[in-house]
């Protein structure tokens, strides 16, 4: 999929601005003033620029002022009943992805989280039941729609194509343009590529909008591409980078890196040239030349300061300096495709070290929010607005580069710095949304809690087998993170007034020290067969003999029956045969023991027919594996690889996880109001918000609203 073909809207703003400048220019020319009043083009530009701003602002505001009473009356009449019946005027939901109830409780007891403790003591604190499986895209989809995954169609980050056994991103699909005009070596796209949201179900803010209640929604996962509704929204998790991937960094070094092929990134060697070092940032494929294998690129050069470790980076005529351990600001990149077509993105540079080897990390190329190549917000100008107001910001769904740390292209310090840089951007966006939403719903998801716990859990968990030499240095990182989030809660409380505050997480966290290669287990137990002569298989079941395979595992928790009539090479008949095979597998897998540690690796296997209901339950895995704490799907198994061992140590920095038995990793629910709820679940949030605003809860929702007590903190 070419990136630029998917970016038809990139030039709209430019055209409008050019037209506005042209119109203003014509206006000035046809109404000439005395020539001596003019002091040159500089003054003309300055005047025009400020005049245009003033003029547009004036027209907008005049229109807003003039029509405000009419609109206000209309909305008052329309919304009068809503707000009269509403129990609340404003609901603020701060989603802290992965905030763990056990850790929160411990830190509250130790007096380290005074604001959370205040909410607990005078409002609400509960464990919040998560989804099955407890994976962020699944849980947040349930959060916003109030339904089980069988109704929103998201079961994992990846879904599988039964016709090919290959994976695809479960949340969105980007289709290339169908027709092209051939012009020499170029193939010009005729039409726009389509971006389709695969998540089903209706988020609660759509119901609010229809009733005339405004919502601001910031970075909630699985909101890409953004849907239209009465409010503003910035898409979150699953927004791709400019290459169309979920984040591909590049690492540049003077060392020979030809043997290194890091997961989620690319290693490139600097070319030395008279004391300067040259490299390039790989971009998307050329949208005008889809057959060309080499992607577009932007070259840059690095000059080392001989007196210090400082380097100067020059890229597209811009220069900036970096010291070791320092990130650059967001750098604007333009990938030229030809015919004036450009793909625009932004990235940050990080100087890992200048000597003895020069090593520079370049973040994945994010979509530029000020000129979005793909729609990442609703309305489209919302991302532009945030960019103009707060400066450029990360737009990639998984912006914190966990793979770069896993692959040691970033160290812990650099990763943390990156996480907090992104978190600061998010915080500023959130407080702006809070200011702009005096009535209605304001929802924001903060990812830092998830990413940092994934990568730093090894420093608080002694059972983790990864090398842990810097234990003392990073032992306090997660505690600091919780304190940081506590301070954020305090700040929200000070600004929320009479509103209802909900702080929740989609799941908790546990250690991930052992991986289970389920496909290997299936093979060893006769459920999965390899082609003749193969003892192992590469990614995505390359060597699997489907004619002899009864079951296979893909993704973080999914196990599928190779069913006749559904999978291309299916051999198990649907109905009783499938049911009995599922039962057989459940019996064998539940209580599976890791002989090396003597621990149970899988505590529960969930039958999809029992846990999912709805029009899309057929797309669900047939079985959902509930791993026991400290276990998770092995890295190879997730990608459909078949290796020699079932159990293996997790040696990666990614040492905390939650893709296990959902009963083991509930999330948290805090509120500044007392909520009457027994066993609250994340699917209750959507119906609760609707109920608080006095709207009827749609019957298709599986969640049940919580009763709101009147007292507040």
């Amino acid at each position: 999929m070419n990136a630029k073909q998917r970016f038809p809207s990139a030039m709209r703003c430019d055209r409008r601005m050019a037209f506005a400048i042209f119109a203003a220019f014509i206006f000035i020319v046809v109404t000439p003033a005395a020539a001596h009043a003019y002091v040159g083009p500089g003054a003309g530009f300055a005047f025009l620029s400020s005049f245009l701003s003033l003029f547009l602002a004036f027209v907008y505001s005049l229109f807003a002022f003039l029509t405000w009473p009419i609109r206000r009356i209309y909305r008052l009449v329309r919304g009068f009943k809503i707000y009269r019946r509403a129990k609340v005027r404003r609901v603020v939901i701060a989603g802290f992805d992965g905030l763990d109830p056990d850790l929160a409780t411990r830190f509250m007891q130790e007096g380290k989280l005074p604001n959370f403790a205040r909410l607990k003591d005078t409002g609400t604190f509960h464990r919040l039941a998560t989804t099955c499986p407890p994976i962020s895209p699944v849980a947040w989809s349930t959060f916003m729609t109030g339904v089980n995954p069988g109704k929103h169609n998201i079961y994992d980050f990846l879904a599988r194509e039964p016709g090919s056994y290959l994976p695809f991103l479960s949340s969105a699909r980007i289709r290339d343009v169908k027709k092209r005009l051939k012009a020499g070596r170029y193939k010009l796209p005729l039409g726009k590529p389509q971006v389709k949201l695969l998540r089903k179900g209706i988020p609660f803010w759509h119901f609010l909008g229809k009733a005339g209640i405004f919502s601001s929604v910031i970075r909630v996962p699985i909101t890409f591409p953004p849907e239209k509704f009465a409010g503003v929204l910035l898409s979150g998790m699953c927004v791709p980078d400019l290459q169309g991937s979920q984040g591909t960094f590049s690492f540049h070094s003077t060392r020979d890196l030809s043997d290194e092929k890091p997961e989620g990134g690319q290693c490139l060697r600097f070319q030395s040239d008279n004391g300067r070092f040259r490299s390039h940032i790989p971009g998307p494929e050329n949208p005008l030349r889809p057959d060309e294998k080499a992607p577009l690129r932007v070259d840059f050069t690095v000059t080392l300061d001989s007196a210090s470790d400082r380097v100067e980076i020059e890229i597209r005529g811009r220069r900036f300096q970096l010291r070791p351990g320092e990130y650059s600001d967001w750098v604007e990149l333009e990938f030229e495709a030809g015919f004036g077509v450009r793909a625009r993105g932004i990235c940050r540079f990080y100087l890992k070290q200048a000597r003895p080897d020069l090593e520079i990390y370049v973040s994945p190329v994010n979509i530029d929010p000020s000129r979005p190549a793909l729609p990442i917000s609703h309305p489209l100008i919302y991302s532009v607005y945030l960019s103009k107001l707060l400066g450029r910001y990360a737009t990639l769904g998984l912006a914190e580069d966990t793979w770069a740390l896993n692959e040691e292209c970033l160290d812990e310090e650099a990763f943390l710095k990156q996480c907090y840089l992104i978190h600061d951007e998010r915080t500023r966006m959130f407080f702006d949304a809070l200011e702009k939403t005096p009535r209605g719903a304001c929802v924001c998801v903060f990812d830092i809690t998830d990413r940092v716990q994934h990568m730093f859990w090894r420093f608080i968990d002694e059972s983790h087998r990864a090398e842990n030499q810097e234990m003392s240095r990073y032992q306090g990182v997660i505690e600091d993170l919780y304190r940081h989030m506590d301070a954020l809660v305090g700040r929200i409380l000070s600004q929320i007034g009479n509103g209802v505050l909900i702080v929740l997480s989609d799941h908790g966290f546990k250690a991930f020290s052992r991986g289970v290669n389920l496909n290997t287990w299936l093979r060893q137990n006769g459920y999965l067969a390899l082609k003749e002569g193969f003892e192992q298989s590469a990614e995505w079941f390359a060597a699997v003999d489907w004619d002899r395979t009864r079951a296979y595992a893909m993704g973080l928790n999914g196990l599928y029956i190779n069913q006749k009539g559904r999978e291309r090479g299916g051999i198990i008949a649907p109905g009783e045969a499938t049911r009995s095979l599922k039962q057989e597998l459940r019996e064998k897998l539940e209580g599976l023991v890791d002989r090396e540690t003597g621990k149970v690796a899988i505590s529960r296997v969930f039958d999809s027919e029992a846990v999912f209901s709805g029009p899309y339950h057929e797309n669900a895995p047939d079985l959902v594996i509930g791993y026991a704490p400290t276990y998770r799907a092995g890295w190879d198994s997730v990608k459909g690889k078949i290796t020699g061992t079932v159990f293996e140590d997790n040696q990666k920095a990614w040492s905390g996880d939650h893709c296990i038995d959902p009963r083991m990793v509930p999330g948290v629910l805090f509120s500044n109001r007392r909520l009457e709820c027994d066993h609250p679940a994340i699917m209750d949030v959507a119906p609760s918000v609707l109920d608080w605003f006095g709207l009827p809860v749609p019957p298709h929702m599986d969640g049940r609203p919580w009763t709101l007590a009147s007292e507040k903190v």
Partner: protein
Amino acid sequence: MPELSYTTANDGSIVEGYPHRAHAPQRSAFLTLISGAFDLFFRPFRAANPAYALVAISFVVGVAAMLVFRYASNQRAMRRIKNRIHAHILEVRLFPDQLGVVSRAYARVVRYTFLYLVYTLQPLLILLLPMLIVLAQLNLRFSRLPLRPGDSFILKAKFTHPGTDAAASLRLPLGLALTAPPLHIPILREVDWRIRANTEGSFWPAVMVAGNAFTKRVVVSSDLAALYVKRERRSWLNWFSAPGERTLPAATPLRAIEVNYARRAIHAGPFEIEWWVFFLIVAFASGLVAKVILRVEL
């Protein structure tokens, strides 16, 4: 009043003489240099369509103005302020139902626009003087057409006191000829002579008042040339507007001597436009190009 004398030059023109050089009004050496530089710049375009010369100078001015903005202004601050202005304009569009937000946004737009103007002040001040000089020089060359052989024109002498015009007379060099008797307009304290240009060249007809001669340069040419419509007494304005011609002495009975050159229009395709409109368009266009290439924040 300094004593003046005049002599006849080889070509028959009458030349003013100043026996007391200390009192003689001098041309600014700086402006002479500038005029010389412009003459040099326009030399290749002398016989061409003046639109080409104007395109060239407009392009240079547009690019130069961008360079001044690029290096004399705080580009980072201007970018930040412009972004804020855009953000608050978008705010009005995004949150139109909230009067508080709209009001605050508008107030902030005004505030940041003012701040933006403050930031543009420094480069504007730097540009002000050079631009005045450039415009004056261009005005000299492009606002009027030189006389052609056979053309008739009016030479006006304007006096300070009533009655002084009665004794005024005109001496013409070879190449110029009177075509009608002088016209005295006492109410305007003015005498007009209708003259015909017979040959190409620069001529200095002299207005004789009380035995003193006051010359005015008259250009008869088909090439691009700097044309001074009016010779006046010294003032700030004509320091810019007529840098190439000496001012009239302060204590003379003459206020000004004028030549009514015809106005020039620049032909741009099917349109005939004023030179400064043409200059604006080309300077803007080249400025826009330079802005993109030089990444100038404006």
